[in-house]
C-alpha cells in the first residue's frame, strides 16, 4: 500500500504537508492533479508535463473504458505505457460521469444498467460543443463495482483477464477509486441521496473484496469515496461506516460535491469530512472549483476561482484535488495569475509585451511569450491553448508548492492572507472564503480597514468581463 508520511502540520489551520509514495515515485501533498481525461493533457507531451513539476495526474475511467477500451490498454501494458507517463496516475471510478449522464443511466443495486453514450465533439478544437449522442445500447451490461475495479486494474495494468489469457503487466496503477453511486449534489430527494450513500458503502465493501481477492492491493491503492450529498447527517453516517473500513483502504475522497451547490454549503461539507477522516490517510477532494453542470464551459471557466478554492480546501485539511480548470480555461484564453484570472482575448492585451506573470517559472513566461502574442493567437491556434495550459498548470502547482513551504515554515495563515489579498484586493473577498478560513482560525480581514474591504456574498467569482462592445475596432 501507499506510503503516506505527514511531514508538517499548520499550527493554526488543519492543513498538513505530507509525502505520498506510490509505485511511480513520490508526490508532495497538498497537491492538485491535472486531468488527462483521454490520456493526454491538451497538446503537451508526457515529458513536457513532467518537466512542469507534475508527478500525479488523473485519467477518467469512464472515458478510457469507452475509448480505447480496457482490452487495448491492457495490450499496451497499461495506461502508463499507453500514454508514455512514468509518474503517478489516479483513475477515477467512472461513477461521477454518470451524474452528467444520468438521464441515460438506470442505476441498480447490481451496478448500472446503462445506455452508453459518448461525447461527440465537433471537429474544431475551438468552439467545440459537447453533444450527447447514444452510441449503442448495451441493455444488460452491468457496470458493477467489481467491473469498475477490474477496469481500473486494467487501466493501471495490474492485470487484466482478457480473452487472450491472464496478463500480468509491469506497471500497476497507483490510485484507483471505488465505484460510488453519485447523485447530483442539488438532488432534492433526500431518500435518493440516502439510498446512494448507503449503496456507496455497500459497493465499497464489494470493491475492497474484489480488490483484495485480485491481489492488487500491494501495488494499487484503493480510495473510498464519502457520499451523502449536502446533508450533514447523511455525511456523518457515511463517514462513520467508511472510517470503520480505514485499514482496508489507502485513502479517502470526498465525492458528490461541485454539482452547482452554494460554496457556503460546499466548504462546510468538506470541513466536516476532513475533520472526521482519519489523520493517517490522504484526503482527496474530488473536482474542486469546477461544476460539471448545464452551464457552458466558458461560463464555468470564468466563474471559478479554483486557486483560492483549493487553498480553502487545504486549510480545511484536504491533501489532494483534481481540477480541469487550468487546462480547460486555457482553451478559452483564460490565464491564471496571482491577481485573478486574465482574459487574454480582451483588446487591452493586444499590445502588452509583458508575460502573463513576471517571474513565473513556466516555459511560456520564462521564454518571454507576451500577452500581446497570446492575444494574437488565442482561440485561433491550438498553440495558444498549449502555451496557456503550460502556464496555468505551473501557476496552480506553484500555488500548492507555496502552500507546502508555508505550512512547513509555520506561515500558512500569512500565505493565505497574502494570496487572497492579491487575488481579491480590488474585486472583494468572497464571503464563503472568509467564513471557511475563519472556521480554522485564519481571519483574512485582520488588519484591513473594514471601510475599504468589500465582501462579496455567493460564489464571489472574480472575472475580467469580456464583451465585444469593449473591444476597440
Amino acid at each position: 500500500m501507499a506510503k503516506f508520511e505527514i511531514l508538517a502540520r499548520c499550527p493554526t489551520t488543519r492543513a498538513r504537508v505530507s509525502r505520498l509514495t506510490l509505485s511511480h515515485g513520490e508526490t508532495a501533498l497538498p497537491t492538485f492533479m491535472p486531468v488527462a481525461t483521454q490520456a493526454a493533457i491538451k497538446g503537451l507531451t508526457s515529458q513536457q508535463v513532467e518537466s512542469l513539476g507534475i508527478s500525479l495526474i488523473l485519467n477518467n475511467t469512464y472515458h478510457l473504458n469507452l475509448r480505447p477500451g480496457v482490452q487495448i490498454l491492457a495490450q499496451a501494458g497499461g495506461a502508463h505505457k499507453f500514454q508514455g507517463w512514468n509518474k503517478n496516475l489516479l483513475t477515477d471510478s467512472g461513477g461521477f460521469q454518470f451524474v452528467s449522464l444520468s438521464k441515460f443511466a438506470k442505476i441498480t443495486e447490481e451496478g448500472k444498467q446503462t445506455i452508453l453514450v459518448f461525447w461527440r465533439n465537433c471537429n474544431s478544437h475551438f468552439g467545440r460543443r459537447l453533444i450527447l449522442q447514444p452510441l449503442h445500447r448495451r441493455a444488460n451490461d452491468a457496470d458493477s463495482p467489481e467491473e469498475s475495479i477490474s477496469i481500473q486494474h486494467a487501466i493501471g495494468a495490474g492485470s487484466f483477464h482478457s480473452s487472450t489469457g491472464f496478463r500480468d503487466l509491469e506497471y500497476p496503477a497507483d490510485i484507483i477509486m471505488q465505484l460510488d453511486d453519485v447523485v447530483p449534489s442539488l438532488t432534492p430527494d433526500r431518500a435518493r441521496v440516502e439510498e446512494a450513500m448507503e449503496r456507496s458503502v455497500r459497493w465499497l465493501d464489494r470493491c475492497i473484496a474484489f480488490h483484495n481477492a485480485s491481489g492488487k492491493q500491494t501495488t494499487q491503492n484503493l480510495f473510498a469515496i464519502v457520499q451523502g450529498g449536502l446533508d450533514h447527517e447523511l455525511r456523518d453516517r457515511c463517514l462513520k461506516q467508511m472510517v470503520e473500513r480505514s485499514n482496508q483502504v489507502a485513502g479517502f475522497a470526498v465525492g458528490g460535491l461541485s454539482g452547482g451547490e452554494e460554496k457556503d454549503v460546499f466548504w462546510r461539507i468538506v470541513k466536516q469530512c476532513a475533520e472526521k477522516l482519519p489523520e493517517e490517510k490522504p484526503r482527496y477532494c474530488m473536482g474542486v472549483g469546477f461544476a460539471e453542470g448545464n452551464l457552458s464551459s466558458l461560463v464555468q471557466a470564468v466563474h471559478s476561482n479554483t486557486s483560492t478554492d483549493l487553498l480553502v480546501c487545504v486549510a480545511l485539511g484536504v491533501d489532494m484535488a483534481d481540477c480541469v480548470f487550468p487546462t480547460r480555461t486555457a482553451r478559452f484564453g483564460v490565464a491564471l495569475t496571482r491577481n485573478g484570472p486574465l482574459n487574454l482575448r480582451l483588446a487591452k492585451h493586444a499590445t502588452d509585451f509583458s508575460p502573463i506573470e513576471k517571474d513565473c517559472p513556466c516555459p511560456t513566461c520564462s521564454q518571454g511569450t507576451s500577452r500581446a502574442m497570446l492575444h494574437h493567437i488565442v482561440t485561433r491556434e491550438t498553440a495558444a491553448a498549449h502555451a496557456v495550459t503550460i502556464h496555468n498548470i505551473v501557476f496552480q502547482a506553484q500555488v500548492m508548492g507555496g502552500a507546502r513551504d508555508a505550512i512547513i515554515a509555520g506561515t500558512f495563515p500569512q500565505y493565505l492572507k497574502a494570496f487572497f489579498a492579491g487575488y481579491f484586493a480590488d474585486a472583494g473577498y468572497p464571503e464563503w472564503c472568509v467564513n471557511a478560513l475563519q472556521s480554522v482560525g485564519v481571519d483574512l480581514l485582520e488588519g484591513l480597514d473594514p471601510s475599504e474591504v468589500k465582501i462579496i456574498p455567493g460564489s464571489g467569482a472574480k472575472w475580467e468581463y469580456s464583451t465585444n462592445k469593449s473591444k476597440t475596432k
Partner: protein
Amino acid sequence: FNHVSPYKNMVGMSVKFQAQTTAFRPRSGSLLLNRPTSAIEIATPALLVTTSRGVVPHLTQAHASTLPCLQVPFETFLEHSPPVPTLHPGSHPLHSFLGFNPENQLLILTLRDPHDVRETPANTNNYVSAVTGRGIRRILSLRCQIYHSLLPPFSQKRVERSVSRSASWVSQILGPNRNVLVHMAGGVSIAARKAFSSNLIEKLHGREAEAISPHKSLDDGLVGYVFDLAPLRMEMDAVSTGDAPDLTTLLRASLDSMPSSKLRVINSVSSPHEILRLIRDVGVDIFDSKWAQDNAAFGVALDFVFPAPAFQTRQNLGHNLYRTDFAQDFSSLSSSYSPCPCPACRPVATSQSAIISHSTMDQFRTDGTPQPASRAYIHHLCLTHEMSAHSLLVLHNLAVMQAFLASVRTLLEHSDNFGRLVDDFHNAYHEGHEQISEARTMW
C-alpha cells in the same frame, strides 16, 4: 516579390553551392545569414516550415524553437494598426514577438499566406490586398514594402500589368542590406515569365537607376527567387484543353536567363515526389513543409525514406491514423525511417534539473526510458479529438521531412545516380493522396 528578411538591421545573406552549378542541375549547398553577432547556416535543399498567425500550428514554443527555417505570413498582423510586432522593443522584434531565436532561426516574411488562394480584391499600382482575421486590408505597397504574388491574372492584360507592376515594386523594396526574395511573376505564360525575368536583369538608367543604387539592375539586389505553386496550379487548371506548359517548363522559363547562383524557393509543394523532381529538373533549394504539416493536422503519420527501400509492392507515404487498423498497433510511427528521432518516436527523459520545482520538499526521480508514442495511442487521440494527436504528428512529420532532405543532400554530394534514385522513389511510393483525402473526411 513577397519575401523580405524581417530584420530591422538587415544583414548580409549569401548562398553557396557545393559545385559550380549550371542552370538546372540538382544542387546542394548552404544558405548563410550573417548577423553582427552570429551566423546561421542552413544546408540546402532545405525545409521551410509553415506558420499560421506566427506560430507553427499545434507545436509548443519549446518544440518550434528547434526548427531552423520558418516562413511567416504577415497579413494577420495587419488586424492592428500599426502591426503589433513592429511595436515590439528590441533588435529582433519579429523573432522576439513570436518567440523564435534570432541566433539560430531564420524567418522568411511574406505578406500573404502563399498557400491561400482565396480571391481577394484586385491589386492596384499602389495597393495590394491582404486577408486578415478581420477582413481584407489594403496595404499601401510603398509603405509596407512587402508584397505578395498576384492571384492568377487570367487575361493577357492582367498578366502584363502584373509583370510590370511587380517589377516596379521590386525597385521600391530593394535596399543596401535587405535580403529580398522575389516571386517570379508571369503565370502560365512563358512569354510573360521571360519578360518578368528580363525586367529583373535589365540594367537601369537615369532616375530608375538612382532609385536602386548601388545596384545596377533589380536582380543585383536579390538573394533569390520564389515560386508560389498554389496560385500557379489554379491557373494551370484553368487553362483549357490541357495546353498549359508543365511546371518544369514554367519554372525554367523564369530562371533561364537568371544567374544560377541565387536561391530558389518553392511554396505549396505537394509531395516528396515533386520535391525530388524539382531538385532534379530545376535545381530548387528550399521547399515549404505545408504538405507534411497538413498531413499531421489530418491525422496522417508520414512514413517514407530516401533512397527508397526495395518494397514488394508500392507503399503509401504515410498512415491515416484514424483508421481502425491502428487501434491495436503498438508500433511506433515509422517503419521505414527508424529510429525516428522526433519527440513522439524517441521521447527523451526529462532531466532532473529541467523539472520546475514548486516547493523545497519537491523531489524528482527520473527513471527509465520514456515510452514512444504508438500508432494505437495516436489513433485514440485522433478519435477523441485530443490536441496532442496533432502535436505529436507535426513533430513526427517534420522530422521525416528533415531526414528526407538530409538524405537528399548527402546523396547529391556523394552519389552520381540521383536521377535513378528519384525514379526508384517514384516506383516505391504512391504519389497520390488517398491517405490524406481519406483522413480529411474521417477528421
